[in-house]
């Protein structure tokens, strides 16, 4: 009985699937496949060798400091970084006083409540504060940015396929749409308030080119601030903001792996020893 029912169920499901397949195949063969602009012109992020890449990679502190400066002076005007606190910058090599200064001089003050009136107020940032957001809420962010909310950057390199390579490629990828693209897909031309960038999934994004001219940011360590340098530095910085425990994690990993390797060898010897009399021969 079970076998009869299961055979019928099997024939039913297999039949439906094959029928679906047939219908799909007929449609596939008889209708013209429409190529989309995104499919054809969207580019995969260019690979760049960041200092923190690879199992032995480590952050370049100087680069992270430069990246922080790019974020502070260029990105922070629109993009929040709400999962970071000023105290976290100790990991970039700043001492307590430098962090205090950095926090106090941060372009956006910390929102607070006036103790006397209960109204909203602001105060200078303290090291324990999280980084203040540029807009008080999503509605304000949307209103100020042509209806596109600038995403929070704390986790950006973990939240996009391609990670830091994507961020770097995107920042360097602003260009006019190619004639070829426009000829093939006239609709792919950037609309009002949009900007063409082949590294963005649908080719047009609301963010205007943020890093435009060399020396837009003046680096404290004297590094020449080419546009590529700034894009690379801020991408490296975003690797750190997304994964501040990266180095600790890998160090732990090496120690644990070394330990486990020894443990595995000992376990193997012990196992072989115990089985010595049971194997053939």
């Amino acid at each position, binding site marked *: 009985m079970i076998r009869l029912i299961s055979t019928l169920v099997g024939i039913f499901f297999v039949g439906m699937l094959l029928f679906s397949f047939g219908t799909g195949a007929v449609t596939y063969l008889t209708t013209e496949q429409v190529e989309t602009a995104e499919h054809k012109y969207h580019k995969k992020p260019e690979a760049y060798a960041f200092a923190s890449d690879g199992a032995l990679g480590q952050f370049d502190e100087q680069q992270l400091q430069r990246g922080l400066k790019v974020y502070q002076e260029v990105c922070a005007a629109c993009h929040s970084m709400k999962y970071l*606190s000023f*105290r976290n910058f100790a990991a970039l090599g700043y001492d307590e006083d430098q962090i205090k200064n950095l926090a106090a001089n941060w372009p956006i003050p910390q929102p607070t409540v006036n103790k006397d009136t209960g109204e909203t107020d602001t105060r200078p940032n303290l*090291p*324990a504060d999280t980084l203040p957001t540029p807009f008080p809420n999503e509605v304000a962010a949307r209103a100020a940015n042509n209806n596109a909310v600038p995403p929070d950057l704390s986790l950006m390199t973990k939240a996009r396929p391609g990670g830091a390579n994507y961020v770097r490629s995107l920042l360097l990828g602003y260009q006019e749409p190619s004639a070829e693209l426009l000829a093939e897909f006239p609709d792919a031309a950037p609309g009002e308030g949009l900007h063409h960038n082949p590294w963005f999934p649908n080719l047009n994004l609301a963010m205007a080119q943020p890093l435009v001219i060399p020396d837009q940011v003046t680096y404290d360590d004297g590094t020449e601030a080419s546009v590529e340098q700034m894009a690379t530095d801020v991408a490296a910085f975003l690797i750190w903001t997304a994964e501040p425990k990266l180095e600790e994690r890998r160090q732990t990993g090496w120690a644990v792996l070394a*330990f*486990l390797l*020894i*443990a595995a060898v*000992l*376990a193997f*010897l*012990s196992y072989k*020893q*115990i*089985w*010595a*009399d049971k194997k053939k021969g």
Partner: protein
Amino acid sequence: MTDQIVKDNGDVASGDNTENTEDGVRRRDFIHIAALSVAGVGAAATVYPLVSQMAPSADVLALASVEIDVSAITPGQAIKTTWRKRPVFIRNLTANEIAEAKKDDTQEMRDPQTLADRTVDGKENWLVTLGVCTHLGCIPLGAAAGEVKGEFDGYFCPCHGSHYDVAGRIRKGPAPSNLEVPEFSFLSDTVIKIG
């Protein structure tokens, strides 16, 4: 089964006829002991992060010290603020109160301390104490305007009737010790750093 040596502790060491010397047995035992020891070390090492994760996290520790601007507190006034999520009383003593506290320095007390012991040299008008009764942890009254200050003009804990004097010393009631003075210092004339 015949060629197994079953030890009292339940470990089974195997041996075959050619190698069953005392040395051979010892070497094999050593491997089992080493393997078990490494497993034990590994298990113990795993416990560390599991225990450590319950300790205060980085954001909590970041608030372990606070800076407070006291310029707005006039003599005779006190404020309640918080430090490590507990209330702190900061009191600006008047000249009279300082005199009263010093006069009492020689009185017999449950927890003898002078005003000088409880304040910073040269700034003995600033009395900084935790607002936590040393009896059972209630918050004493007396910091805010209009609150009962108790029989000794300091703080009064309504839970079980502990009376503290102007220097926050226990004078009457069940509390065993004076209101705790946290570690603090003056960063400038008007800014106190607690913790």
